């Protein structure tokens, strides 16, 4: 189980690092095995930053990320390598993820060099074949090719297979299908569904609400680095409470209903204010609207007093 507890990331910019740019603020949620969590937000919401913090590609300024009992931020050397046995990632651009001057089997040999140098050639090949089989790819058809000779969908599946070589428990999927065509998206998405049923915990980072709704059990809606609404997917989509969530859902183009001139319905009084009338006092209070469905102050980050 991966837990994020009030995680923050602040960038220092400007001359001598004087100005602070908060990218992520006080984000807390968990990813359990066998569960897909959608992290939904628009650009600048901080969703990719969270993914990179989990993968230890950038540092954590505040809060704690724990895998089981281990604090992720302090891992180094061999401990960090062990962490990567259990937590892996797949990124948005499959062509950028594979070094263009090497054949695609290079991404597997990287893993072999670090984790499997004691395996014989035959053992290694069968392990790779097994991983590729899980993503419906044939070793003979893909391994000897260069990235530009394969399609985006094939590359993304290869990258998922790479993540499966280790004992991955948590997979961070950062916008992995936004660069794929519609017909291949579903294949990769269904693949994630299969992995989920095998016990993998997946963080599905996306800006596309329909996809998040399709595949996930839990949804976290992110806006400007803060969580504005989170909970069980059907509850968040069925009963969206925060004005931002409502706006997002109303903006999604659907296939059976046209955008009318309907105004976004008034969400009613702010739930957080009702729970604590003196205001959230600058902290990201989430109030439970119904079991497994929480929402933040409606005016969070607007600089308007409660």
């Amino acid at each position, binding site marked *: 189980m991966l837990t994020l507890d009030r995680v923050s990331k602040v960038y220092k910019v400007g001359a001598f690092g004087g100005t602070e740019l908060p990218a992520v603020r006080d984000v807390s949620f968990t990813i359990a095995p066998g569960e897909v969590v959608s992290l939904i937000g628009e650009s600048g919401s901080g969703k990719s930053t969270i993914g990179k913090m989990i993968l230890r590609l950038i540092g954590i300024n505040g809060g704690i990320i724990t895998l089981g009992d281990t604090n992720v931020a302090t891992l180094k050397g061999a401990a960090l390598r062990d962490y990567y046995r259990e937590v892996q990632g797949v990124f948005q651009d499959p062509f950028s993820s594979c070094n263009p001057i090497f054949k695609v089997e290079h991404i597997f040999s990287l893993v072999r060099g670090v984790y499997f140098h004691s395996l014989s050639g035959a053992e290694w090949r069968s392990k790779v074949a097994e991983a590729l089989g899980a993503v419906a790819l044939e070793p003979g058809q893909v391994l000897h090719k260069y990235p530009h000779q394969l399609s985006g969908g094939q590359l993304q599946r290869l990258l998922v297979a790479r993540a499966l070589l280790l004992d991955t428990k948590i997979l961070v999927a950062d916008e992995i299908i936004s660069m794929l065509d519609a*017909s291949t998206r*579903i294949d990769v998405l269904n693949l994630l569904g299969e992995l989920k049923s095998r016990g993998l915990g997946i963080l599905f980072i996306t800006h*596309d609400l329909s996809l998040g709704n*399709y595949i996930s059990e839990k949804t976290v809606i992110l806006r400007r680095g803060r969580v504005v609404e989170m909970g069980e997917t059907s509850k968040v*989509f069925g009963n969206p409470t925060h004005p931002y969530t409502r706006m997002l859902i109303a903006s999604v*183009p659907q*296939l059976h209903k046209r*955008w009318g001139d309907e105004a976004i319905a008034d969400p009613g009084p702010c739930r957080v204010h009702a729970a604590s009338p003196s205001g959230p006092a600058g902290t990201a209070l989430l109030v439970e609207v119904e079991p497994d469905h929480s929402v933040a102050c409606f005016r969070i980050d607007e600089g308007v007093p409660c």
Partner: protein
Amino acid sequence: MSLQVNDLRVYYRTLAGDVKALDGVTFEIADGEIMGLAGESGCGKTTLGNSLVLLDGRMKQVGGTVMLDGAPLPIADFNEMRHFRYRDISIIPQYAMSALNPTRKIGKMIGELLESRDVRYREIRPELERRLGLVGLGLDVLQRYPIELSGGMKQRMVMVVSTLLDPSLLIADEITSALDVSSQKAVAQALQSFRDQKFVRSMIVVTHDVSILYQIADTLAVMYAGKLAEKAATDVMMQRAKHPYTRMLIASLPEVGVRYTEHKLTGIAGTPPSLLNPPTGCRFRDRCPLAIEQCAEEPPFVEVEPGHSVACWRADDVAAPKDSVA
């Protein structure tokens, strides 16, 4: 305005031979029609959009004709087309909003653009400001640098600039792809309003996102591997699509509300054919679940009912509601 494209073929020159990006495309657009051009990467939709405006150095027109308002459009002649570009036909190119010169203020850039087209910036400025207001942009936008604007704002600004001279035909190439969901809606609706307010007569909206096209387009044309698979009114396409590719494409789109546990969507196995040496016969044959022997012969793009054309031998067999293929 009316556009008639007849058997248009545009190929790319490469070291390895000619890439047949557009291999015989025929369709018509009526006055006031917004036609959505959908398809996956490599299908030729961007080539089609670009070839109607500017054939760059690598492209060559190999066959076919284009008629704009009854007169032939000389797309292969770079200099002749100069009379038509921006005034009669305009384009919002892919990645337009990333192509803005970061060191120029928006107003200055627009001024330079217009002067290069022999339009006096001062004369057209009131109209420019009016239109910027119509799409929800304040006048201060002209004094800003591109980096100060959000993606949606830049896109709307580019839209206004591209349609300033009221072109008959506007080609919008993937203008919503790089935007957030909230900006997408604003931009798509702005596009529709341009047609409604007669800034533009007709439009071709090129995108891979079928759901946006459902919202704003009157007709939908689906391309596959350099050829047109199907063209029909949008509602007809959603309910009664006849080409297997179209049906499978629509069936693979998750709408808000469909969940993996309830109804697993299916994709289309395989990949589109290489356009360097395309296969003979129907190009979708290898991936089509309904393929028969006759598909080895290329099916013609014919009208099966008024306003609805398909390129499939088995179009008439597929008369049932859309989920029967999935």
